[in-house]
């Protein structure tokens, strides 16, 4: 019997400081057993439990794309016991990964559709995975127009900056970068909060356009009315939730919103689904 609690052993292959305040680091992991990489086959939007013996486990969205091989990548904010410990770990250290867990953005349903991706702060990780995946040449033609609104507090707090700048230059994706504020006189992108920028740049709502939102609660709270105003139907607004988790497989009982378990029935829900559940997240 497969044991869903047993992590795959991995080695930390690379660590990069991801933001100017050093509160986020990006980790690349390599599976000790190459076959585990195949067992870990995932889709953009899923998460995993990073498992550090003696410290515990944390649920983190997968930042690498299924089209990237040979490693899996996670960007982790230093906040609690396990993440603080992880931030002190070194390349070469051994730990574990459990997953992939949860559902993913509905890629089958999104085929042939326009996608508006809205991200804020360090919730951009699974969105990075998604962008990387849809821009992969065999995939790009499957989708319509792609717009991305991504905001951070300052330019230095933007994740994956080099990639953002590359994507910015492409003509098969519209990247709208914004920061809350900046002193940089040469800043050539947007300034302002994500909801405001979304209102300005979002493609018009229609049956063939879906919005994917992932960000801090405050951003979601103020972006939703904007999408309502733009006419996005609630079954066309796709959101990814977070809640405290332990098992990640729908058994330990703590991450529920009503009868749905964020870890297993989610983390991805449409706003239409969320309208029917208690907002206990």
């Amino acid at each position, binding site marked *: 019997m497969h044991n869903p609690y047993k992590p795959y052993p991995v080695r930390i292959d690379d660590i990069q400081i991801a933001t100017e305040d050093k509160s986020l680091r990006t980790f690349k992991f390599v599976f000790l057993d190459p076959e585990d990489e195949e067992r870990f086959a995932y889709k953009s939007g899923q998460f995993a439990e990073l498992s550090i013996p003696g410290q515990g486990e944390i649920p983190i969205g997968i930042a690498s794309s299924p089209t990237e091989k040979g490693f899996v990548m996670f960007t982790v904010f230093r906040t609690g016991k396990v993440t603080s410990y992880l931030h002190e770990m070194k390349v070469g250290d051994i730990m574990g990964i459990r997953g992939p867990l949860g559902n993913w953005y509905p890629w089958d349903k999104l085929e042939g559709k326009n996608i508006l991706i809205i991200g804020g702060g360090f919730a951009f990780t699974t969105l990075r995975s998604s962008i990387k995946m849809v821009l992969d040449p065999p995939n790009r033609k499957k989708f319509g127009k792609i717009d991305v609104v991504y905001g951070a507090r300052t330019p230095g707090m933007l994740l994956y900056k080099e990639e953002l700048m590359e994507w910015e230059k492409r003509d098969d994706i519209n990247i709208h970068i914004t920061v809350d504020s900046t002193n940089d006189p040469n800043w050539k992108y947007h300034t302002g909060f994500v909801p405001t920028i979304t209102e300005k740049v979002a493609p018009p709502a229609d049956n063939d356009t879906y919005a994917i939102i992932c960000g801090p609660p405050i951003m979601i709270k103020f972006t939703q009315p904007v999408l309502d105003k733009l006419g996005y139907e609630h079954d066309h607004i796709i959101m990814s939730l977070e809640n405290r988790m332990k098992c990640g497989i729908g058994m330990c009982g703590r991450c529920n919103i*009503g009868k749905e378990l964020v870890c297993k029935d989610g983390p991805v829900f449409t706003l239409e689904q969320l309208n029917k559940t208690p907002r206990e997240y």
Partner: protein
Amino acid sequence: MKIIKIDKKIWSDGVEKSRDSYRLIGPVKDREFHQFRELAKGEQPDMNYKNSRLSPKSIAFPQSETMFIYDLDEKAEEHHIMQDAEKDYSPRAVIGIRPYDAKAFKILDLNFNNSDYQDPYWVNAYNCTTFISLAVNSPDKFDFSTSCATGPFDDSAVDVLLVDYNDSYLAKIMTDKGLAWLNAAGFTTKNGEIDGAVTGVSEAGEDIYEIIEKLKADAESKIRSKISFDKIKEKSILDIFNAPFWEDIAFACLNCGTCTYSCPTCWCFDIQDETNGRKGIRQKNWDSCMTPLFTVHATGHNPRHNDWERTRQRFMHKLKYFQDKYNQGIMCVGCGRCVEQCPANIDIRNICNQMNNGE
């Protein structure tokens, strides 16, 4: 389905004999209260027990269970890699479990053993266990099991149902697993025939069936409290969630968690690492929705910050979410432990009826 009659005079010897092929678990008195635990050699299950303080769910879902062991010493082979903890899943029998406590295992099984994931600790422990259940002839005043699709004589989740009848146990043999234990105890002939060839075993006639039916009807008639949850099913989750009565219901609640720990169907758990020196274990521990730590995010945000929201969660889970998700009744077998043990006299029967009928 066959029934055999076991003379109480040969009961203890049979139980002892079954140890040759089974580990035994049963109710034993520990200071004031009964609990289910593995029986030491020569130790007998107390068949006169009334109820156990904690439910027997711990047989397959222990309060604390080691899943993995690890070694943090970098010189050790396979350091920082979780290794399976040693487990004993050899056959075992739980003797004297109440029929509805056995039924609770079917409810837990929905959570721990589904088409997507199987918790191997639960599945293996459940599978290796034979349920030799004891019908409850005299249900207590807290018992409302007959409202919960089970009852004091429910034979649907057991391998053998024993009925205490004067100087004998009448044993309803529900499964081959049950028959195997009776064989091992010597309550049948060697070949598993149940034709009365062994001393103390007699052919069961129709009258035995009638006796059991009569005892069952007597027992069920002693249960006076009833609950209804049919209307809970029809209402929307948000209607009940947003009902005005929750703060009143939770007013007395201390969020102590007694109900969750004593409950045979509460399945929530935590995962924790415990390191001693360079070696450690990863454990699955019972958890409780009554504690703020259950849901608090690393940022400090807590989706169920208020104590009354946590009380609401427990009843919504048992009586509404579970019904909606599985369409198999409620997540409660009516054992009455939470009613009896709640220090604030909160009574799930009243709350269920309020959710069913109230605004």
